[in-house]
């Protein structure tokens, strides 16, 4: 366990960013926080979390895959991917940190997505315990401990100091390069963690119970008559998807810039009406099917294929951002009724 005085935070950031690009959650001037490359003068946000999740850094909204050049009957494949530079992501919350595990299960399973993989390899994740969880937090439901997040390095903060614990080799290596961190006792964080846990225990959404959302009940959940009513107000926008740290659906599109064809990958949302559109129709023709897909994926399909791990980390972003507030907690609670 290491520590550094809060007043020295700037030195720490400065030292880290000498070697690697450092992203920290900072206010963006529009009343919200986002991960921003650190530069002299940039300070940590007071906000609990960023609006856009930390997945952006590993799975960006848009990335170029490959270029082509068509000429006559010939095609030239131009691989022009830029390898990501090493970077450090500071201030990741416990929920977002868990989301990397979920994304890993998708992108690092065979066949491995090399774009994601290299970013994961290049990125050092420094998590930060949540001093002030908010009412929309329900990470605890998924066994995530906001008082002791994972990642390459875990940090805790109180008024005086930042506490630092390296968890992995990557974390150790980074720590070794930061001499301003001084040693301290493991127990130093206990009061902080205890305080956090006492708040976590009072969170209103702790009562969310997801037992029974397993493979055996998949068909039952799928055929629930409630989907009709639940999906009724859904606008079919991609807000929940795009702020979600675990949503990873993507689209591959070509853009002809007049000289070359750029094939890029971009986020997509299963809530969008054309998500599964083919030349002769779509198998999810109404918002009901699309809405069902998103929540079934998070609550049933994903855990079925991944040792029961839910595709949700309880970050609460969709609870705050859904234009009509039809969020995963409402859906899960409604479906739970069916399983009783």
């Amino acid at each position: 366990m290491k520590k550094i005085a809060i007043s020295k935070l700037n030195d720490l950031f400065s030292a880290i960013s000498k070697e690697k690009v450092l992203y920290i959650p900072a206010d963006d001037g529009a009343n919200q926080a986002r991960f921003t490359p650190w530069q002299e003068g940039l300070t940590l946000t007071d906000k609990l979390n960023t609006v856009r999740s930390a997945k952006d850094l590993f799975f960006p909204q848009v990335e170029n895959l490959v270029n082509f050049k068509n000429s006559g009957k010939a095609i030239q494949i131009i691989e022009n991917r830029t390898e990501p530079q090493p970077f450090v992501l500071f201030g990741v919350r416990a929920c977002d940190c868990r989301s990397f595990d979920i994304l890993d299960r998708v992108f690092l399973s065979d066949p491995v997505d090399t774009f994601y993989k290299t970013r994961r390899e290049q990125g050092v994740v420094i998590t930060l315990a949540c001093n002030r969880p908010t009412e929309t937090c329900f990470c605890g439901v998924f066994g995530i401990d906001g008082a002791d997040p994972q990642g390459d390095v875990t940090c805790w903060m109180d008024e005086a100091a930042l506490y630092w614990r390296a968890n992995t080799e990557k974390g150790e290596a980074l720590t070794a390069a930061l001499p301003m961190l001084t040693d301290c006792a493991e127990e130093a964080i206990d009061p902080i963690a205890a305080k956090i846990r006492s708040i976590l225990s009072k969170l209103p959404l702790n009562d969310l119970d997801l037992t029974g959302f397993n493979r055996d009940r998949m068909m039952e959940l799928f055929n629930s008559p409630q989907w009709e009513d639940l999906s009724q107000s859904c606008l079919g926008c991609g807000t929940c998807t795009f702020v979600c740290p675990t949503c990873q659906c993507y689209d591959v599109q070509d853009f002809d810039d007049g000289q070359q064809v750029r094939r890029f990958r971009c986020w997509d949302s299963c809530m969008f009406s054309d998500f599964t559109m083919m030349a002769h129709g779509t198998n999810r023709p109404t918002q009901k099917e699309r809405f069902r897909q998103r929540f079934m994926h998070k609550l049933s399909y994903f855990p079925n294929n991944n040792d029961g791990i839910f595709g949700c980390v309880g970050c609460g972003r969709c609870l705050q951002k859904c234009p009509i507030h039809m969020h995963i907690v409402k859906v899960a609670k409604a479906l739970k009724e069916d399983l009783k």
Partner: protein
Amino acid sequence: MSVNNEFQPTIVAFCCNWCSYAGADLSGTNRLQYPANVKIIRIPCSCRLNPMFILRAFQRGADGVILCGCHPGDCHYTTGNYYARRRMTLLFSMLDYLGIERDRTRVEWVSAAEGAKFAATMNDFAATIHKLGPNRRLEDLRCRKD
């Protein structure tokens, strides 16, 4: 880009078939010169010009877009240019509001008889765009050619 690396703007001129395209033809018939950067796209009427086309042109690397149509009152389809006038006024105002240079877009009414006006307009517009330099505020970086 031309050989001497001087900025050569790309200018798209949308011309209505009945007046301005004929006006452009007339300026050709009269051998009135205007810069080769100006490329004309024939549309049936100025009211056919969808704002999307203008934005598309800027996206793909145009530095200026001009719409030429019949003089108000002379539209072959009676009222087309009146609608075009309102649409373009509002569109240009919005582009201006978004901070796009006002001079990159223009509407000019050119009749079939105004070959000289057509050439003069194009010369003037091309000079204006040349002065403004490359379109940087409403461009798609993927389409940038340099």
